[in-house]
Protein backbone atom coordinates (compact mmCIF):
# COMPACT_ATOMS: atom_id res chain seq x y z
CA UNK A 1 0.00 0.00 0.00
CA UNK A 2 1.53 3.29 -1.03
CA UNK A 3 -0.38 5.31 1.53
CA UNK A 4 -1.62 4.65 5.01
CA UNK A 5 -5.36 4.31 5.44
CA UNK A 6 -5.39 4.14 9.24
CA UNK A 7 -2.02 5.61 10.26
CA UNK A 8 -2.58 8.63 7.99
CA UNK A 9 -0.47 10.87 10.22
CA UNK A 10 2.54 9.12 8.71
CA UNK A 11 1.63 10.65 5.32
CA UNK A 12 -0.15 13.85 6.33
CA UNK A 13 1.65 16.06 8.87
CA UNK A 14 -0.53 17.65 11.58
CA UNK A 15 -3.58 15.54 10.72
CA UNK A 16 -4.29 15.62 14.45
CA UNK A 17 -5.35 19.24 13.90
CA UNK A 18 -9.02 19.63 13.01
CA UNK A 19 -8.49 22.07 10.11
CA UNK A 20 -5.83 19.83 8.55
CA UNK A 21 -7.99 16.75 8.96
CA UNK A 22 -10.94 18.51 7.32
CA UNK A 23 -8.75 19.80 4.48
CA UNK A 24 -7.91 16.17 3.74
CA UNK A 25 -11.52 15.04 3.51
CA UNK A 26 -12.10 14.67 7.22
CA UNK A 27 -15.75 14.44 8.28
CA UNK A 28 -16.92 14.27 4.63
CA UNK A 29 -17.90 10.65 5.27
CA UNK A 30 -19.85 11.58 8.39
CA UNK A 31 -21.63 14.36 6.54
CA UNK A 32 -22.48 12.14 3.57
CA UNK A 33 -23.84 9.47 5.88
CA UNK A 34 -25.84 11.72 8.18
CA UNK A 35 -27.37 13.80 5.35
CA UNK A 36 -27.78 11.14 2.70
CA UNK A 37 -28.07 7.60 4.05
CA UNK A 38 -30.33 5.72 6.42
CA UNK A 39 -28.74 3.89 9.38
CA UNK A 40 -29.65 0.58 7.72
CA UNK A 41 -27.85 1.63 4.52
CA UNK A 42 -24.71 2.31 6.55
CA UNK A 43 -24.95 -1.10 8.24
CA UNK A 44 -25.38 -2.75 4.83
CA UNK A 45 -22.29 -0.98 3.43
CA UNK A 46 -20.15 -2.05 6.39
CA UNK A 47 -21.46 -5.62 6.07
CA UNK A 48 -20.70 -5.64 2.35
CA UNK A 49 -17.21 -4.24 2.93
CA UNK A 50 -16.51 -7.26 5.13
CA UNK A 51 -14.90 -5.24 7.94
CA UNK A 52 -14.06 -7.54 10.84
CA UNK A 53 -13.46 -6.57 14.46
CA UNK A 54 -9.84 -5.58 15.00
CA UNK A 55 -9.83 -6.08 18.76
CA UNK A 56 -9.06 -9.76 18.40
CA UNK A 57 -12.20 -11.74 17.69
CA UNK A 58 -12.46 -10.83 14.01
CA UNK A 59 -16.26 -10.83 14.12
CA UNK A 60 -17.93 -9.05 11.17
CA UNK A 61 -18.67 -5.51 12.36
CA UNK A 62 -21.82 -4.88 10.31
CA UNK A 63 -23.29 -8.20 11.47
CA UNK A 64 -22.61 -7.20 15.10
CA UNK A 65 -24.48 -3.93 14.54
CA UNK A 66 -27.35 -5.84 12.94
CA UNK A 67 -27.97 -7.68 16.24
CA UNK A 68 -29.14 -4.50 18.03
CA UNK A 69 -32.58 -5.11 19.53
CA UNK A 70 -35.06 -3.35 17.24
CA UNK A 71 -37.01 -0.38 18.55
CA UNK A 72 -35.32 -0.24 21.95
CA UNK A 73 -33.85 3.14 22.92
CA UNK A 74 -31.68 4.77 24.09
CA UNK A 75 -28.80 2.89 22.56
CA UNK A 76 -25.10 3.32 23.26
CA UNK A 77 -21.85 3.01 21.39
CA UNK A 78 -18.72 2.22 23.36
CA UNK A 79 -15.27 2.46 21.80
CA UNK A 80 -13.03 -0.15 23.38
CA UNK A 81 -9.78 1.75 23.98
CA UNK A 82 -8.64 -0.46 26.85
CA UNK A 83 -5.69 -1.68 24.77
CA UNK A 84 -3.83 -3.99 27.19
CA UNK A 85 -2.86 -7.19 25.37
CA UNK A 86 0.89 -7.69 25.81
CA UNK A 87 2.50 -6.63 22.55
CA UNK A 88 -0.37 -4.42 21.38
CA UNK A 89 0.04 -0.66 20.94
CA UNK A 90 -1.84 0.23 17.77
CA UNK A 91 -4.96 1.91 19.18
CA UNK A 92 -2.71 4.18 21.18
CA UNK A 93 -0.92 5.39 18.03
CA UNK A 94 -4.23 5.97 16.25
CA UNK A 95 -5.72 7.98 19.11
CA UNK A 96 -2.55 9.97 19.76
CA UNK A 97 -1.71 10.82 16.17
CA UNK A 98 -4.86 10.46 14.05
CA UNK A 99 -7.59 11.11 16.64
CA UNK A 100 -10.20 12.71 14.40
CA UNK A 101 -10.42 9.76 12.03
CA UNK A 102 -11.13 7.56 15.05
CA UNK A 103 -13.71 10.02 16.42
CA UNK A 104 -15.36 10.32 12.99
CA UNK A 105 -15.58 6.53 13.02
CA UNK A 106 -17.27 6.66 16.42
CA UNK A 107 -19.78 9.17 15.08
CA UNK A 108 -20.55 7.08 11.97
CA UNK A 109 -21.05 4.02 14.18
CA UNK A 110 -23.44 6.02 16.39
CA UNK A 111 -25.46 7.10 13.37
CA UNK A 112 -25.72 3.52 12.14
CA UNK A 113 -26.65 2.26 15.61
CA UNK A 114 -29.03 5.19 16.20
CA UNK A 115 -27.22 6.06 19.40
CA UNK A 116 -26.95 9.61 20.70
CA UNK A 117 -24.31 8.89 23.33
CA UNK A 118 -20.90 7.27 22.93
CA UNK A 119 -18.24 6.51 25.51
CA UNK A 120 -14.57 6.02 24.71
CA UNK A 121 -13.34 3.65 27.42
CA UNK A 122 -9.58 4.30 27.65
CA UNK A 123 -7.32 2.29 29.91
CA UNK A 124 -6.36 4.48 32.88
CA UNK A 125 -2.70 4.47 31.92
CA UNK A 126 -3.65 6.42 28.75
CA UNK A 127 -4.09 9.45 31.00
CA UNK A 128 -2.41 12.01 28.74
CA UNK A 129 -3.99 10.58 25.61
CA UNK A 130 -7.47 10.65 27.19
CA UNK A 131 -7.14 14.28 28.16
CA UNK A 132 -5.97 15.20 24.65
CA UNK A 133 -8.92 13.28 23.23
CA UNK A 134 -11.32 15.30 25.40
CA UNK A 135 -9.90 18.48 23.88
CA UNK A 136 -10.43 17.11 20.38
CA UNK A 137 -14.03 16.31 21.30
CA UNK A 138 -14.48 19.91 22.54
CA UNK A 139 -13.16 21.18 19.21
CA UNK A 140 -15.68 18.99 17.38
CA UNK A 141 -18.48 20.46 19.51
CA UNK A 142 -17.37 23.97 18.67
CA UNK A 143 -17.24 23.11 14.97
CA UNK A 144 -20.80 21.72 15.06
CA UNK A 145 -19.61 18.16 14.42
CA UNK A 146 -21.04 17.03 17.75
CA UNK A 147 -23.97 18.22 19.78
CA UNK A 148 -27.50 18.83 18.56
CA UNK A 149 -28.80 18.76 15.00
CA UNK A 150 -25.51 17.80 13.37
CA UNK A 151 -25.31 19.05 9.74
CA UNK A 152 -28.80 20.51 10.21
CA UNK A 153 -30.37 17.07 10.62
CA UNK A 154 -32.19 15.48 13.53
CA UNK A 155 -29.06 13.57 14.53
CA UNK A 156 -27.69 14.50 17.99
CA UNK A 157 -24.51 13.07 19.40
CA UNK A 158 -22.29 13.40 22.46
CA UNK A 159 -18.99 11.55 22.93
CA UNK A 160 -17.45 11.17 26.39
CA UNK A 161 -14.06 9.82 27.39
CA UNK A 162 -14.05 7.47 30.39
CA UNK A 163 -10.87 6.28 32.08
CA UNK A 164 -10.46 2.75 33.37
CA UNK A 165 -8.06 2.25 36.24
CA UNK A 166 -5.70 -0.63 35.51
CA UNK A 167 -7.42 -3.93 34.72
CA UNK A 168 -6.71 -5.97 31.55
CA UNK A 169 -10.01 -7.79 31.87
CA UNK A 170 -11.89 -4.57 31.05
CA UNK A 171 -10.90 -5.15 27.41
CA UNK A 172 -13.46 -7.99 27.45
CA UNK A 173 -16.58 -6.18 26.30
CA UNK A 174 -18.98 -7.19 29.05
CA UNK A 175 -16.37 -6.56 31.77
CA UNK A 176 -15.81 -3.16 30.17
CA UNK A 177 -19.53 -2.40 30.43
CA UNK A 178 -19.57 -3.44 34.09
CA UNK A 179 -16.60 -1.15 34.72
CA UNK A 180 -18.29 1.70 32.87
CA UNK A 181 -21.29 1.20 35.16
CA UNK A 182 -18.97 1.75 38.13
CA UNK A 183 -18.63 -1.89 39.14
CA UNK A 184 -15.86 -4.46 39.34
CA UNK A 185 -14.65 -5.26 35.83
CA UNK A 186 -15.94 -8.81 35.71
CA UNK A 187 -17.42 -10.41 32.58
CA UNK A 188 -21.14 -11.06 32.38
CA UNK A 189 -22.72 -14.37 31.54
CA UNK A 190 -23.78 -14.28 27.88
CA UNK A 191 -26.37 -14.25 26.37
CA UNK A 192 -27.69 -11.61 26.51
CA UNK A 193 -24.99 -10.03 24.35
CA UNK A 194 -24.41 -6.26 24.52
CA UNK A 195 -26.38 -5.69 21.30
CA UNK A 196 -29.47 -6.83 23.21
CA UNK A 197 -28.59 -5.73 26.76
CA UNK A 198 -25.37 -3.78 27.07
CA UNK A 199 -24.67 -0.56 28.93
CA UNK A 200 -27.43 0.07 31.49
CA UNK A 201 -29.15 -3.00 29.96
CA UNK A 202 -29.75 -1.03 26.73
CA UNK A 203 -28.74 -2.12 23.21
CA UNK A 204 -25.03 -1.33 22.89
CA UNK A 205 -22.33 -1.60 20.24
CA UNK A 206 -18.82 -2.18 21.58
CA UNK A 207 -16.15 -1.78 18.88
CA UNK A 208 -12.37 -1.60 19.01
CA UNK A 209 -10.60 1.68 18.16
CA UNK A 210 -8.95 0.33 15.00
CA UNK A 211 -12.27 -1.11 13.80
CA UNK A 212 -13.96 2.27 14.14
CA UNK A 213 -11.05 4.03 12.41
CA UNK A 214 -11.75 1.89 9.31
CA UNK A 215 -15.23 3.38 8.90
CA UNK A 216 -14.51 6.85 7.42
CA UNK A 217 -12.38 5.44 4.54
CA UNK A 218 -14.92 2.66 3.85
CA UNK A 219 -17.70 5.24 3.55
CA UNK A 220 -15.49 7.59 1.51
CA UNK A 221 -14.11 5.12 -1.02
CA UNK A 222 -16.69 2.34 -1.09
CA UNK A 223 -17.00 -1.38 -0.74
CA UNK A 224 -15.12 -2.39 -3.90
CA UNK A 225 -12.12 -0.27 -2.99
CA UNK A 226 -12.04 -1.72 0.54
CA UNK A 227 -12.34 -5.26 -0.72
CA UNK A 228 -9.44 -4.70 -3.12
CA UNK A 229 -7.20 -4.62 -0.02
CA UNK A 230 -6.47 -7.78 1.97
CA UNK A 231 -8.01 -11.17 1.26
CA UNK A 232 -11.50 -12.24 0.24
CA UNK A 233 -12.55 -13.30 3.75
CA UNK A 234 -10.32 -10.84 5.63
CA UNK A 235 -10.54 -7.58 3.68
CA UNK A 236 -8.87 -4.30 4.48
CA UNK A 237 -5.73 -3.00 6.11
CA UNK A 238 -4.50 -4.12 9.53
CA UNK A 239 -2.03 -2.60 11.92
CA UNK A 240 0.47 -5.26 12.94
CA UNK A 241 2.29 -4.50 16.20
CA UNK A 242 5.73 -6.02 15.91
CA UNK A 243 7.72 -6.43 19.14
CA UNK A 244 10.38 -8.56 20.81
CA UNK A 245 13.61 -9.63 19.15
CA UNK A 246 13.38 -7.70 15.88
CA UNK A 247 15.62 -4.99 14.52
CA UNK A 248 12.79 -2.51 13.99
CA UNK A 249 9.86 -3.01 16.36
CA UNK A 250 6.83 -0.85 15.69
CA UNK A 251 3.40 -0.61 14.11
CA UNK A 252 3.14 -1.63 10.48
CA UNK A 253 -0.04 -1.00 8.52
CA UNK A 254 -0.25 -3.72 5.87
CA UNK A 255 -3.01 -5.57 4.03
CA UNK A 256 -4.49 -8.53 5.88
CA UNK A 257 -2.90 -11.61 4.38
CA UNK A 258 0.67 -10.29 4.51
CA UNK A 259 2.98 -13.14 5.53
CA UNK A 260 4.87 -13.38 8.82
CA UNK A 261 8.06 -13.49 6.74
CA UNK A 262 7.34 -10.17 5.05
CA UNK A 263 6.43 -8.49 8.35
CA UNK A 264 9.40 -9.75 10.32
CA UNK A 265 12.15 -9.72 7.68
CA UNK A 266 11.16 -7.01 5.18
CA UNK A 267 9.47 -4.48 7.44
CA UNK A 268 10.93 -5.40 10.82
CA UNK A 269 14.49 -5.78 9.53
CA UNK A 270 14.75 -9.40 10.71
CA UNK A 271 15.70 -10.93 14.03
CA UNK A 272 17.84 -8.62 16.15
CA UNK A 273 21.58 -9.23 15.99
CA UNK A 274 21.16 -11.66 13.10
CA UNK A 275 20.25 -14.45 15.51
CA UNK A 276 17.95 -17.31 14.54
CA UNK A 277 14.20 -17.13 15.04
CA UNK A 278 12.81 -19.59 17.58
CA UNK A 279 9.11 -18.86 17.99
CA UNK A 280 6.35 -16.32 17.35
CA UNK A 281 3.39 -15.29 19.45
CA UNK A 282 1.05 -13.90 16.75
CA UNK A 283 -1.62 -12.48 19.07
CA UNK A 284 0.17 -11.28 22.18
CA UNK A 285 -0.07 -13.61 25.15
CA UNK A 286 -3.50 -14.79 24.04
CA UNK A 287 -2.78 -17.46 21.45
CA UNK A 288 -0.62 -20.54 20.96
CA UNK A 289 3.07 -20.17 20.09
CA UNK A 290 4.12 -20.83 16.53
CA UNK A 291 7.44 -22.49 15.64
CA UNK A 292 9.86 -20.84 13.22
CA UNK A 293 9.18 -23.13 10.27
CA UNK A 294 8.99 -22.08 6.62
CA UNK A 295 5.32 -23.12 6.66
CA UNK A 296 4.60 -20.66 9.47
CA UNK A 297 6.70 -17.85 8.01
CA UNK A 298 4.92 -18.14 4.67
CA UNK A 299 1.47 -18.13 6.29
CA UNK A 300 -0.68 -15.11 5.40
CA UNK A 301 -1.68 -13.19 8.51
CA UNK A 302 -5.45 -13.23 8.21
CA UNK A 303 -8.32 -14.61 10.27
CA UNK A 304 -8.49 -17.91 8.34
CA UNK A 305 -4.86 -18.79 7.66
CA UNK A 306 -3.26 -18.39 11.10
CA UNK A 307 -5.62 -20.96 12.71
CA UNK A 308 -4.60 -23.44 9.99
CA UNK A 309 -1.06 -23.49 11.39
CA UNK A 310 -2.29 -23.76 14.97
CA UNK A 311 -2.75 -20.26 16.35
CA UNK A 312 -4.86 -17.11 15.99
CA UNK A 313 -4.47 -13.69 14.39
CA UNK A 314 -6.19 -12.01 17.36
CA UNK A 315 -5.17 -8.37 17.64
CA UNK A 316 -2.11 -9.07 15.41
CA UNK A 317 0.44 -8.25 18.07
CA UNK A 318 3.35 -10.28 16.78
CA UNK A 319 5.96 -10.99 19.47
CA UNK A 320 9.20 -12.42 18.08
CA UNK A 321 11.47 -14.70 20.13
CA UNK A 322 15.02 -15.50 19.06
CA UNK A 323 16.95 -18.72 19.71
CA UNK A 324 18.09 -17.57 23.19
CA UNK A 325 14.58 -17.54 24.65
CA UNK A 326 13.70 -20.29 27.10
CA UNK A 327 10.06 -21.22 26.54
CA UNK A 328 9.65 -22.31 30.18
CA UNK A 329 10.58 -18.73 31.15
CA UNK A 330 8.21 -17.32 28.52
CA UNK A 331 5.37 -19.51 29.80
CA UNK A 332 5.85 -18.19 33.28
CA UNK A 333 5.85 -14.60 31.99
CA UNK A 334 2.54 -15.02 30.18
CA UNK A 335 1.02 -17.11 32.99
CA UNK A 336 2.01 -14.58 35.61
CA UNK A 337 0.33 -11.93 33.50
CA UNK A 338 -2.96 -13.85 33.37
CA UNK A 339 -2.77 -14.77 37.06
CA UNK A 340 -2.39 -11.08 37.89
CA UNK A 341 -5.19 -10.04 35.55
CA UNK A 342 -7.70 -12.82 36.30
CA UNK A 343 -10.79 -11.06 37.67
CA UNK A 344 -11.53 -13.82 40.18
CA UNK A 345 -15.12 -14.39 39.14
CA UNK A 346 -14.87 -17.94 37.82
CA UNK A 347 -13.03 -20.71 39.63
CA UNK A 348 -11.20 -22.43 36.74
CA UNK A 349 -9.43 -19.20 35.77
CA UNK A 350 -8.84 -17.80 39.27
CA UNK A 351 -7.46 -21.06 40.71
CA UNK A 352 -6.05 -22.41 37.46
CA UNK A 353 -3.83 -19.41 36.65
CA UNK A 354 -2.69 -19.35 40.31
CA UNK A 355 -1.58 -22.99 40.24
CA UNK A 356 -0.08 -22.79 36.75
CA UNK A 357 1.98 -19.85 37.99
CA UNK A 358 3.13 -21.80 41.07
CA UNK A 359 4.15 -24.85 39.07
CA UNK A 360 5.96 -22.77 36.46
CA UNK A 361 7.82 -20.86 39.15
CA UNK A 362 8.91 -24.16 40.66
CA UNK A 363 10.09 -25.37 37.25
CA UNK A 364 11.98 -22.17 36.49
CA UNK A 365 13.64 -22.20 39.91
CA UNK A 366 14.88 -25.75 39.33
CA UNK A 367 12.79 -27.08 42.21
CA UNK A 368 10.42 -29.21 40.14
CA UNK A 369 10.26 -32.96 39.61
CA UNK A 370 9.70 -34.52 36.20
CA UNK A 371 6.07 -35.27 37.05
CA UNK A 372 5.45 -31.55 37.66
CA UNK A 373 5.55 -31.05 33.88
CA UNK A 374 2.70 -33.57 33.56
CA UNK A 375 0.89 -31.78 36.38
CA UNK A 376 1.31 -28.45 34.56
CA UNK A 377 -0.18 -29.95 31.45
CA UNK A 378 -3.04 -31.55 33.39
CA UNK A 379 -3.99 -28.29 35.12
CA UNK A 380 -3.87 -26.38 31.82
CA UNK A 381 -6.00 -28.97 30.06
CA UNK A 382 -8.37 -29.02 33.02
CA UNK A 383 -9.07 -25.32 32.57
CA UNK A 384 -9.68 -25.54 28.83
CA UNK A 385 -13.29 -24.94 27.85
CA UNK A 386 -14.40 -24.25 31.42
CA UNK A 387 -13.76 -20.52 31.93
CA UNK A 388 -16.40 -17.81 31.87
CA UNK A 389 -14.54 -15.65 29.37
CA UNK A 390 -11.63 -15.78 26.93
CA UNK A 391 -9.01 -14.66 29.47
CA UNK A 392 -8.91 -18.04 31.18
CA UNK A 393 -9.12 -19.89 27.87
CA UNK A 394 -6.25 -17.85 26.43
CA UNK A 395 -4.08 -18.21 29.52
CA UNK A 396 -3.30 -21.88 28.90
CA UNK A 397 -2.44 -21.47 25.20
CA UNK A 398 1.21 -20.36 25.47
CA UNK A 399 1.73 -23.08 28.12
CA UNK A 400 0.19 -25.97 26.21
CA UNK A 401 1.74 -24.94 22.88
CA UNK A 402 5.07 -24.40 24.66
CA UNK A 403 4.93 -27.93 26.08
CA UNK A 404 3.92 -29.29 22.71
CA UNK A 405 6.63 -27.54 20.69
CA UNK A 406 9.47 -27.02 23.16
CA UNK A 407 9.03 -29.62 25.92
CA UNK A 408 12.80 -30.00 26.39
CA UNK A 409 12.97 -26.34 27.51
CA UNK A 410 10.85 -27.36 30.51
CA UNK A 411 12.66 -30.65 31.07
CA UNK A 412 16.02 -28.87 31.19
CA UNK A 413 14.92 -27.21 34.45
CA UNK A 414 14.06 -30.40 36.27
CA UNK A 415 16.25 -30.68 39.36
CA UNK A 416 16.19 -33.31 42.03
CA UNK A 417 12.89 -32.09 43.37
CA UNK A 418 14.14 -30.66 46.64
Amino acid at each position, binding site marked *: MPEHILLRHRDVPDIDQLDVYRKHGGFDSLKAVVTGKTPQEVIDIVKAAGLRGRGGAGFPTGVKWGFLSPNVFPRYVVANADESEPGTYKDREIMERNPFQFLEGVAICCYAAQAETAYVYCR*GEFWDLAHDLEQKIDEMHKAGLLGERIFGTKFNLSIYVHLG*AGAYICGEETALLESLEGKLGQPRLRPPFPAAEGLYAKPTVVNNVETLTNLPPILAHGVDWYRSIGTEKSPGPKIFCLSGHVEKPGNYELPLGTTFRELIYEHGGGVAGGRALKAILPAGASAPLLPATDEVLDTPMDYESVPKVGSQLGSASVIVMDETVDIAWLSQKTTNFFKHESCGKCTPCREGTFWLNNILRRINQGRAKAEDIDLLEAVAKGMTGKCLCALGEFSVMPVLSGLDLFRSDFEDHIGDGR
Partner: protein
Amino acid sequence: MLAEKHRSAIDTILKKFPPDRKRSAVLPLLYLAQHEYGAITDEAVAEIAELAGVDPTQVASLVGFYTLFHEGPGGAYRIQICTDLPCALRGAAQFADELCARLGIRMGETTSDGLITVEEVKCLAACDRAPMFQLQDNEGIHYHENQTVESAMALIAMLRERQSDA
Protein backbone atom coordinates in the same frame (compact mmCIF):
# COMPACT_ATOMS: atom_id res chain seq x y z
CA MET B 1 -14.47 17.67 51.50
CA LEU B 2 -14.47 16.79 47.81
CA ALA B 3 -18.02 18.01 47.33
CA GLU B 4 -17.18 21.55 48.43
CA LYS B 5 -13.71 21.92 47.00
CA HIS B 6 -14.29 20.29 43.62
CA ARG B 7 -17.94 21.05 42.93
CA SER B 8 -17.51 21.95 39.27
CA ALA B 9 -15.26 18.97 38.52
CA ILE B 10 -17.79 16.68 40.17
CA ASP B 11 -20.64 18.22 38.18
CA THR B 12 -18.70 17.73 34.95
CA ILE B 13 -18.16 14.07 35.82
CA LEU B 14 -21.77 13.43 36.79
CA LYS B 15 -23.08 15.11 33.62
CA LYS B 16 -21.46 12.43 31.48
CA PHE B 17 -23.96 9.84 32.68
CA PRO B 18 -27.76 9.55 32.83
CA PRO B 19 -29.09 11.08 36.09
CA ASP B 20 -30.13 7.67 37.44
CA ARG B 21 -26.70 6.14 36.63
CA LYS B 22 -24.48 8.08 38.98
CA ARG B 23 -22.64 4.91 39.96
CA SER B 24 -20.76 5.20 36.65
CA ALA B 25 -18.99 8.19 38.19
CA VAL B 26 -17.21 6.13 40.84
CA LEU B 27 -13.94 5.60 38.94
CA PRO B 28 -13.58 9.27 37.91
CA LEU B 29 -14.42 10.30 41.48
CA LEU B 30 -11.77 7.93 42.83
CA TYR B 31 -9.20 9.64 40.58
CA LEU B 32 -10.36 12.99 41.94
CA ALA B 33 -10.03 11.75 45.52
CA GLN B 34 -6.57 10.34 44.90
CA HIS B 35 -5.56 13.70 43.44
CA GLU B 36 -6.90 15.49 46.53
CA TYR B 37 -5.74 13.14 49.31
CA GLY B 38 -2.76 11.34 47.72
CA ALA B 39 -4.42 7.99 48.38
CA ILE B 40 -7.90 6.57 48.69
CA THR B 41 -8.70 7.18 52.34
CA ASP B 42 -11.71 5.84 54.25
CA GLU B 43 -13.05 9.37 54.29
CA ALA B 44 -12.79 9.54 50.48
CA VAL B 45 -14.63 6.23 50.11
CA ALA B 46 -17.49 7.54 52.24
CA GLU B 47 -17.67 10.81 50.32
CA ILE B 48 -17.69 9.06 46.93
CA ALA B 49 -20.35 6.62 48.07
CA GLU B 50 -22.51 9.58 49.05
CA LEU B 51 -21.91 11.39 45.73
CA ALA B 52 -22.58 8.32 43.59
CA GLY B 53 -25.48 7.06 45.66
CA VAL B 54 -23.96 3.66 46.44
CA ASP B 55 -22.80 1.77 49.51
CA PRO B 56 -19.25 2.52 50.76
CA THR B 57 -18.43 -1.20 50.43
CA GLN B 58 -19.16 -1.00 46.72
CA VAL B 59 -16.66 1.82 46.36
CA ALA B 60 -14.02 0.19 48.57
CA SER B 61 -14.13 -3.07 46.58
CA LEU B 62 -13.08 -1.18 43.44
CA VAL B 63 -9.97 0.24 45.10
CA GLY B 64 -8.47 -3.21 45.51
CA PHE B 65 -9.56 -4.37 42.06
CA TYR B 66 -8.13 -1.55 39.96
CA THR B 67 -4.35 -1.24 40.17
CA LEU B 68 -4.08 2.53 39.64
CA PHE B 69 -5.71 3.32 42.98
CA HIS B 70 -3.65 3.24 46.15
CA GLU B 71 -4.91 2.81 49.69
CA GLY B 72 -1.65 3.54 51.43
CA PRO B 73 0.83 6.31 50.88
CA GLY B 74 3.77 5.38 48.65
CA GLY B 75 6.42 7.69 47.30
CA ALA B 76 5.32 11.07 45.94
CA TYR B 77 6.14 9.56 42.55
CA ARG B 78 5.63 5.98 41.48
CA ILE B 79 7.93 4.71 38.74
CA GLN B 80 6.00 1.79 37.29
CA ILE B 81 8.20 -0.24 34.99
CA CYS B 82 6.67 -2.61 32.48
CA THR B 83 8.48 -5.95 32.76
CA ASP B 84 5.96 -7.95 30.74
CA LEU B 85 7.08 -10.29 27.96
CA PRO B 86 7.69 -7.84 25.07
CA CYS B 87 9.54 -5.38 27.33
CA ALA B 88 11.42 -8.23 29.05
CA LEU B 89 12.70 -9.36 25.64
CA ARG B 90 14.20 -5.88 25.27
CA GLY B 91 16.01 -5.63 28.58
CA ALA B 92 13.33 -4.32 30.95
CA ALA B 93 14.29 -6.63 33.84
CA GLN B 94 17.93 -5.57 33.72
CA PHE B 95 16.86 -1.93 33.51
CA ALA B 96 14.59 -2.38 36.55
CA ASP B 97 17.31 -4.15 38.57
CA GLU B 98 19.92 -1.50 37.80
CA LEU B 99 17.57 1.38 38.54
CA CYS B 100 16.64 -0.13 41.91
CA ALA B 101 20.34 -0.69 42.69
CA ARG B 102 21.16 2.94 41.87
CA LEU B 103 18.32 4.08 44.16
CA GLY B 104 19.39 1.65 46.89
CA ILE B 105 15.97 0.02 47.13
CA ARG B 106 14.38 -3.27 46.20
CA MET B 107 11.47 -3.59 43.77
CA GLY B 108 8.29 -2.28 45.40
CA GLU B 109 10.13 -0.16 47.96
CA THR B 110 10.26 3.60 48.44
CA THR B 111 13.42 5.72 48.67
CA SER B 112 14.26 6.90 52.20
CA ASP B 113 13.29 10.50 51.34
CA GLY B 114 9.80 9.28 50.44
CA LEU B 115 10.12 10.59 46.90
CA ILE B 116 10.19 7.52 44.65
CA THR B 117 8.50 4.13 44.76
CA VAL B 118 9.60 1.67 42.07
CA GLU B 119 7.06 -0.95 41.02
CA GLU B 120 6.73 -3.61 38.33
CA VAL B 121 3.58 -3.41 36.23
CA LYS B 122 1.96 -5.33 33.39
CA CYS B 123 1.92 -4.33 29.72
CA LEU B 124 1.48 -0.57 29.12
CA ALA B 125 1.08 -0.68 25.31
CA ALA B 126 4.52 0.73 24.59
CA CYS B 127 6.27 -2.49 23.60
CA ASP B 128 8.33 -1.03 20.75
CA ARG B 129 9.89 1.59 23.02
CA ALA B 130 11.17 -0.56 25.89
CA PRO B 131 12.59 -0.14 28.43
CA MET B 132 9.81 2.16 29.55
CA PHE B 133 7.84 3.16 32.62
CA GLN B 134 4.94 5.32 33.60
CA LEU B 135 5.37 7.96 36.24
CA GLN B 136 2.30 8.18 38.43
CA ASP B 137 1.76 11.02 40.89
CA ASN B 138 -1.31 12.67 42.33
CA GLU B 139 -1.65 14.80 39.20
CA GLY B 140 -1.77 11.97 36.70
CA ILE B 141 0.21 9.46 34.70
CA HIS B 142 2.89 10.13 32.10
CA TYR B 143 4.85 7.73 29.89
CA HIS B 144 8.65 7.73 29.67
CA GLU B 145 9.86 5.54 26.81
CA ASN B 146 13.16 4.35 25.32
CA GLN B 147 14.73 4.73 28.73
CA THR B 148 18.23 4.08 30.03
CA VAL B 149 19.19 4.00 33.69
CA GLU B 150 20.92 7.35 33.08
CA SER B 151 17.83 9.01 31.57
CA ALA B 152 15.69 7.69 34.42
CA MET B 153 18.17 8.97 37.02
CA ALA B 154 18.18 12.38 35.31
CA LEU B 155 14.39 12.48 35.57
CA ILE B 156 14.57 11.50 39.25
CA ALA B 157 17.12 14.27 39.90
CA MET B 158 14.70 16.74 38.33
CA LEU B 159 11.83 15.45 40.48
CA ARG B 160 14.04 15.81 43.59
CA GLU B 161 14.78 19.40 42.68
CA ARG B 162 11.10 20.11 42.05
CA GLN B 163 10.28 18.62 45.45
CA SER B 164 12.89 20.69 47.32
CA ASP B 165 11.69 23.87 45.56
CA ALA B 166 8.12 23.19 46.59
